[in-house]
């Protein structure tokens, strides 16, 4: 089962942002979308979730999303926006509970508490959402999204987490917590597509990476294939050196190497 986007072209105003992108995410895997600021990562995710006008086709578990009703889509995928807003003074647990709105399967009463617990916010349920810090708000929104698609597989169909920079404003401990959380979601059969800021975290946790540059896919594949000096240097417009210590088996890139080379 896959999430497929075929020949996605998107314009915002008169500017073409995406130039015919083909992209596939697989259930049971984390697919990371990386790339420099403004390259079109969020726009791609918004095209996939029908938030911006686009041409092309998106299929979810083989079904064309254009033919699906909002509640059918909501039962199959949760979407975390890059920047979330909330009107009115809801408490954290009230926010998370709204994930149950469309939680058609597995909408058990204890799910919101468990979701809060999973993102490291137990005890925060009775606080006002608007009074949380940025990172805490982001985790509360993630808990709401998790709540919506709590079970990774329902009726043999995988469900999907589509996340725009889920760890961008988190401290390193919570970055690892959330990455492990989505890693676990994928290994239980769900699909995860995450726009990521951090190359090293992506290489560490993702099964596949896709680098976007100026609205095109520059490279995609397993992290070790994508994390190449020439690819990254071209994408980010500076000299970058990738290291892959044999003992670690994982590629990483450090900022200071960029300056020295």
């Amino acid at each position, binding site marked *: 089962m896959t999430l497929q986007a075929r020949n996605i072209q998107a314009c915002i105003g008169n500017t073409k942002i995406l130039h015919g992108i083909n992209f596939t995410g697989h259930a049971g895997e984390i697919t990371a979308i990386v790339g420099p600021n403004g390259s079109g990562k969020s726009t791609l995710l918004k095209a996939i979730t029908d938030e911006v006008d686009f041409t092309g086709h998106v299929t979810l578990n083989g079904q064309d999303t254009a033919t699906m009703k909002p509640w059918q889509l909501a039962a199959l995928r949760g979407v975390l*926006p890059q920047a979330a807003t909330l009107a*009115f*003074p809801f*408490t954290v647990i009230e926010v998370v509970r709204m994930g149950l*709105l469309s939680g058609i399967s597995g909408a058990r009463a204890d799910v919101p508490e468990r979701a809060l617990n999973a993102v490291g916010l137990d005890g925060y*349920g009775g606080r006002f959402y608007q009074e949380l810090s940025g990172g805490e708000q982001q985790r509360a929104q993630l808990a709401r999204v998790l709540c919506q698609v709590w079970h990774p597989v329902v009726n043999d169909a995988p469900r999907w987490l589509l996340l725009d920079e889920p760890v961008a404003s988190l401290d390193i401990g919570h970055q690892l917590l959330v990455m492990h959380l989505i890693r676990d979601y994928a290994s239980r059969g769900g699909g995860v597509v995450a726009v990521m800021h951090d190359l090293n975290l992506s290489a560490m946790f993702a099964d596949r990476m896709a680098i976007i540059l100026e609205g095109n896919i520059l490279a995609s594949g397993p992290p070790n294939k994508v994390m190449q000096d020439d690819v990254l240097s071209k994408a980010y417009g500076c000299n970058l050196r990738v290291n892959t210590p044999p003992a670690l088996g994982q590629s990483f890139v450090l900022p200071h190497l960029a300056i020295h080379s």
Partner: protein
Amino acid sequence: MVQANPIPDRRITARRAHVGLALLLALTSLISLAYGASGTSLWGAMQKLVTGQPLGQMEQVVLLDIRLPRLILGLVVGASLAVSGAVMQGLFRNPLADPGLVGVSAGAGLGAITAIVLGGLLPVAFMAAGPYLVPLAAFLGGWGSTILLYRVSTRRGRTSVATMLLAGIALGALAGAVSGILVYIADDAQLRDLTFWGLGSLAGATWTKVMVALPVMGAAIIAALFLGRGLNGLAFGEATAAHMGIPVQRIKNIAILTVAAGIGAAVAVSGGIGFIGIVVPHLLRLANGPDHETLLPNAALLGASLLLLADVISRMVIAPAELPIGIVTAVLGAPVFLWILLRRRGLVDL
């Protein structure tokens, strides 16, 4: 850090509030029936009913033809104003969006005035609309101004409060100016109708008005009660609401229609009554939180109670004469509104 005193589960307090507010409404309804200029005793009439004696003619006229329609009208107008306010605030994602403040009532008023002054010019076919003409025109006026306001102030699912309030002022001023021109060309009989209508009063309550307004406002209120989930979702913005499985466009359309119908019918039968639509939802949000699923029914109950109370006060203050009820709601509501602004100072981002 986790704060020391977290907010308890507000679903429970909200459900308790349903019961309390229903009792309050029963009480205010009784007061409204019992109190009146004629001094006719509700208690006496009830005793007669229970013991099987016939009611006197005076009692029948006062209770059944004067106070009862007034009670029903006050109840449904109050509920309608409060629910429309709550729906509009949910739609605009802002607690300051009140139909009276942002020109929707003025638009409905313009519709009503147009119907009163120019209704006679319509082809005879329209005359069949009879008593429905004014409410219908008020509905169209309210609908048009709500849509215009939403179009002007919302971009990509985000509503700018500044634009909304300023556009509302412009809309209100425009509707007021055009209404002024119409008043200027009205003849004497129409002027009497207009003055009476413009005072904002339940004094003209008749069974005819009840029959015209009750179905429209009743339908609007009932439809609005189903918007709770959708408006909760809209609090996250349109895109996220859609991802939660909410049919956003349909919710928006229904919300706009219920506000237009509720405000249009309320304005048509009782003129402009302010502040119920902003004060009632605000008090309820303070008490039970912003969850629209409990806020909307509670707003209907509290709005009805408060308007009935305001109506009783308007009949008491300078008895045997009556104050327009709009004056009473303004005197009581405006300070509450200022207090809201004071509390939110700094949070009202323009």
